[in-house]
């Protein structure tokens, strides 16, 4: 059984590779390379996989999942400038792809070995663009 919880945060970022010239960055990232940055309302959907506990009927207590998301995702990310304020984006470009991978890494240690294991992280950067990461599995 899959169970998905959705949360939202707002943050700014710049898509910029310091190893490239300004014009190369412009060409690669377009307006997203604007040096002053820009922001999004990100939506994160976290999916757990597991069977419901026969006693509680729950895969994982959703209150606990909410608290984990609040503590490990919303608190560090919300209303931050990702490049300047959220590790590892001081040296990794905060594309939606890398944000999904980072959120996986933040959550996975707290969900491994549990009844509901982490199955996927989906990050919507806008309504029309989202990425899915399944922990390296395709």
């Amino acid at each position: 059984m899959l169970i998905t919880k959705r949360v939202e945060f707002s943050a700014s970022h710049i898509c910029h590779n310091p190893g490239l010239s300004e014009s190369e960055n412009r060409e690669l990232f377009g307006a997203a390379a604007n040096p002053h940055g820009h922001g999004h309302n990100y939506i994160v959907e976290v999916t757990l996989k597991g069977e419901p506990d026969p006693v509680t009927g729950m895969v994982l207590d959703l209150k606990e999942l909410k608290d984990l998301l609040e503590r490990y995702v919303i608190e560090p990310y919300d209303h931050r400038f990702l490049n300047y304020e959220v590790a590892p984006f001081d040296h990794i470009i905060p594309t939606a792809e890398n944000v999904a991978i980072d959120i996986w890494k933040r959550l996975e240690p707290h969900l491994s070995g549990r009844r509901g294991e982490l199955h996927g992280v989906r990050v919507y950067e806008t309504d029309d663009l989202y990425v899915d990461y399944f922990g390296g599995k395709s």
Partner: protein
Amino acid sequence: MIHVSRKYRFSASHRLHSEQLSESENQHIYGKCNYPFGHGHNYELEVGVKGPVEAKSGRAIDTTALDLLVSTEILEAFAYKNLNAEISEFRNVVPTTENLGIEIHRRLNSKWRDVFPGQWPALDKVRIAETSRNIFEVSENGQK
């Protein structure tokens, strides 16, 4: 491996009617969709790709290149068209959204390597919603 999905929209008209069926069979199978003058939808197309994150860009796909491909091969071809009358593939094939999804997948797949010549990113799926309740998905190998 990362999956990236991007949404596009276009409007078009169609009529579901098969020459291989009688009038009454057509009416029975397709119902309102068989009304003789056709009808339209705001189609919502989702193109899903997969690939590893490229170190240089931190991205799995150049979405600008994807937008250009979808715009040239799909949106310009289908938007504001009557699918039955104006798309040659639907002369003899009923433009159900199943068949439209397969045709969109075929068109994207045939130009994919011109735009994305390496192994990655790969075209993963075409998902098309004819209305918010009717959604069709065509996977990697072009099968429903």
